[in-house]
């Protein structure tokens, strides 16, 4: 893994580590956001759940016209309640061998827990990523799309500022 290619996000939650770990894993479907940006199935009926344990996996299912589809999002590589959970993480547009790495830590902090997600491995993707050859996977396109959207917004603001002056 390349240093500096991780996204790192932390949150303080006012519950003990054991509860935080439990909610994070067994209740994931209850808090994982819905909609296109967060679930492969978008707004279709579906579920995201862990098969718990050190050999476990993370799945998302969703309903289609021709039945229920199941996508394996991740494979658990570390399952150490209440401290740590690691996964190999794949988005729906990843090729067979492409994967990223998610590491979640639960650290006791005063009367609660600091939960930190470190999502790494992104720099390994671009070289032969489908998007680079014009085969745009939806998730990747959204990522790039929002990046370009931001740039275009910055541009519009810049132009508006220049017009004002």
């Amino acid at each position: 893994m390349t240093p500096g290619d991780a996204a790192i996000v932390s949150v303080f939650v006012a519950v003990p580590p054991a509860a935080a770990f439990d909610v994070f894993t067994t209740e994931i479907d209850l808090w994982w956001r819905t909609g296109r940006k967060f679930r492969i199935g978008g707004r279709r009926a579906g579920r995201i759940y862990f098969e718990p344990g050190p050999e476990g996996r993370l799945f998302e299912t969703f309903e289609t016209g021709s039945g229920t589809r199941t996508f394996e999002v991740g494979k658990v590589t570390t399952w150490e309640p209440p401290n740590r959970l690691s996964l190999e993480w794949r988005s729906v547009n990843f090729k067979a061998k492409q994967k990223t790495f998610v590491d979640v830590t639960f650290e006791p902090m005063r009367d609660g827990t600091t939960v930190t997600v470190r999502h790494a491995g992104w720099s390994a993707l671009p070289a032969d990523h489908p998007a680079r050859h014009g085969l745009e996977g939806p998730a990747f396109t959204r990522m790039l799309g929002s990046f370009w959207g931001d740039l275009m917004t910055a541009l519009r603001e810049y132009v508006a500022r220049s017009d004002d002056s």
Partner: protein
Amino acid sequence: MSDLDQTLAALSDPTRRKVVELLRKKPRPAGELARAFGMSPPAMSRHLRTLRQSGLVEEEHGGEDARVRVYRLRREPFGELRGWLEDVEAFWSAELDSFKAHAERTRGKAKTPR
């Protein structure tokens, strides 16, 4: 001029913005870009030079014919990886906010004992 200023200045021209939009799909030879905009090659060449100087695009030699120069979008000036990571961080921030709200609602104590 900062990198961002230079990028934005290069993109402040509508033709150059459209060139960038076209190059998002795939790299293209300069001649093809000129034709797409109904422009003379020298006029297009001036736009491409500005884009190149701002670091937004780069030219490469196109395959068998070394005389054909193909333009492609560069990602580095946009802090490509940084851009993705910011998206990934925005994604996880949203998820963790939602996680926190749910965990505290269902497992949190109404009042923290002292």
